[in-house]
């Protein structure tokens, strides 16, 4: 199996996530696109781990850390989204412009 094809899949998922973050205005959909990007990094780490044939499985451990950080990120992110919705009645990220001058 070619390593580069798996890495290309990761790059594609990352690019799709970049598109989603830039083009979506619903905050929950932006969070979903961020999950896509984090997941593409996991694919890269697992592919490199299989390529190195590392007995310590360092790539898998880093992937586990990324999964944990993603869970923390989506928890705090959704709490912020709920708070914004409660205060502003919208979660469109282009309408939440209190910090814009």
């Amino acid at each position, binding site marked *: 199996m070619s390593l580069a094809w798996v890495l290309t899949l990761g790059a594609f998922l990352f690019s799709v996530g970049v598109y989603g973050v830039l083009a979506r205005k619903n905050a929950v959909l932006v969070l979903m696109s961020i999950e896509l990007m984090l997941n593409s990094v996991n694919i890269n780490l697992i592919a490199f781990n299989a390529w190195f044939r590392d007995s310590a499985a*360092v790539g898998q451990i880093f992937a*586990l850390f990324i999964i944990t950080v993603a869970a923390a990120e989506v928890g705090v992110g959704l709490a912020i989204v709920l708070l914004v919705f409660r205060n502003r009645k919208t979660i469109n990220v282009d309408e939440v412009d209190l910090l814009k001058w």
Partner: protein
Amino acid sequence: MDPEATEGAVVSWPAVFVAIFGAVAALSAVAVVLSRNVVHAALYLVVVLGAAGAIFLVLGAEFVGWTQILIYVGAIVVLLLFGLMLTAAPIGTHALDNQQRGVAFMTSAAVFGVFTFIIWRSFGSQRIHLNQVVRTSDVGRSLFSGYILPFEVVSVLLLAALVGAIVLAKKD
């Protein structure tokens, strides 16, 4: 395909499975960012994450594959669906997308082009030889011997995020 890919007439089944699940993941990822219905987007995200978990399993990452399915599909997507239900989720392209779709597409295409160029230039001839499965016990042994400090730090991070989410979402 690189010239070393010809390994006789034997079909490499892991490569076939990775190709199938990769295609499923790629198409569903596109559906996530193009879908006009937020709930459909979340369900396509389930397909992407499940296919990625299957790829992890094929690549020999047993524990990470099942963790991926358990945490992402079981917890994170459910959390996102709760978020969709608690906020009024509109339907339609104009309600969900902003006016920068062209710029966003060009940016992501540029990112993909640069990444693909670098990947194929650096690793175009490298091959993955799958001859071992990394057992959960191996991951655990490595995690609790060499990476115990990052493990503790990330658990404190998770606790802090939990408390922070409760404090933020609490009604005063």
